[in-house]
Each structure stands twice: as C-alpha cells, then as structure tokens.
C-alpha cells in the first residue's frame, strides 16, 4: 500500500495542453519531492517543497505543497513532447525516523505531437 497516492496514473495529452498531477496522503510530510523518470533511467529530482502552502516554479512546471503538508500538485503549462515520462512524488513522513524516501505510484505522462 502506497502511503502517497498519485493521480491520475496515466495521462495522454496533445502538445500545448495544460495538465495537473496530484499527490495525496493522510500523513503529514516534512517535505515532498517531485522526480521525473525516463525509461531505463533512475529518477531525477525536479524540486523539493518544504513549507505548507509553498509554490515553486521551474520554467513551465509549477509545484505546490498543501497548507497541511499532506498533499502536493504539479502543473505543467503548454506541455511539450519532451515532458513525456514518469512523474513521481516522494517524501519523508514527519514520524519517520529513517532516511528513506516514500514514493507515490507515479503518473505516466505521454505528450503527443
């Protein structure tokens, strides 16, 4: 059972469209990270959000951390074919004394030309 639930699991859109990916939990997280993973590669960190309500922008990507630090979203504006990949959210719960990351199930995005 994933502690972090991502939705949607799959998303297929046309180039130029906007999209939002959600990462939800019943647990509070000290921070959340978003990763992108391409086939045959390991996840690569996109951003870390730490403060409840925080919004970070990375070019056409906007990341938001919920006020209660239980959820996060990733919004992509004017998607490009190069955005295709698996998007993963990950975090460490507040009560986790370990150092490992807990990942969501991922959202597989396909952007068609």
């Amino acid at each position, binding site marked *: 059972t994933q502690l972090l639930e991502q939705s949607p699991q799959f998303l297929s859109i046309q180039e130029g469209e906007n999209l939002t990916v959600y990462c939800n939990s019943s647990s509070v*997280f000290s921070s959340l990270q978003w990763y992108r993973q391409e086939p045959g590669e390991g996840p690569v960190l996109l951003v870390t959000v730490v403060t409840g309500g925080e919004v970070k922008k990375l070019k056409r990507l906007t990341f938001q951390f919920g006020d209660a630090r239980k959820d996060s979203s990733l919004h992509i504006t004017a998607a490009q074919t190069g955005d295709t990949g698996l998007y993963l959210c990950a975090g460490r719960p507040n009560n986790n004394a370990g*150092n*490992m990351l807990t990942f969501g199930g991922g959202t597989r995005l396909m952007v068609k030309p």
Partner: protein
Amino acid sequence: GAGVSQSPRYKVAKRGQDVALRCDPISGHVSLFWYQQALGQGPEFLTYFQNEAQLDKSGLPSDRFFAERPEGSVSTLKIQRTQQEDSAVYLCASHTRLAPTSTDTQYFGPGTRLTVL
C-alpha cells in the same frame, strides 16, 4: 563527474537461481539506498547503508534478500532462490551526507532490470 552506476543493467534468471546486483555510488558518498520498483509502480525502499553499516533493512521483503557494503563504497544486493515476484527494477541511490535530511537529493543509478522466468 561520474554518477551512480549499476551492473548488470539487465538480468534474466531462472526461478530458483541466485543473483547479485552491483551498485557503484558516487565517489565519497557515504549514504547508500536500495529500492525496488515493480512494473508501473513507484520505487519502494529496501535497505540503507551509512558507510559499511547497514542501518535499516526494514524494506527487504524476505530473508532471501541480502545486501552488503563491506568497504563502505560498492554495494551488492543478493537475491537467493529467485521467484517470479522478484521481477522488478532495482535502483540504487547515494548521498554525500551521513544522514540525508528531508530536503536533500538522492542521486539514483539507472537500475538493474531483473526478470525471473
């Protein structure tokens, strides 16, 4: 500089065979993590090393799984008597800190795709 490397990149094993997966972390990185990523899923934590000490192995799914890092650099994940449910991508990640904080980046290798027939 060189990133995290893993070998082999692909491994096909017959059910019941033993396999050994290798991880070469970034030079100087003291923390090392193993994750298992099933097809279509996010990675799940297996075990964590701080130098040569295995501090957390709570994610290892059974006693058939064993990991070591004897000299605090290269790590090997061994799976004995492989089963079909072991088929997955095994990811290794490393970090320079002794105890990465919640905002630190873990650097992932490309993974080893294990297929058990």
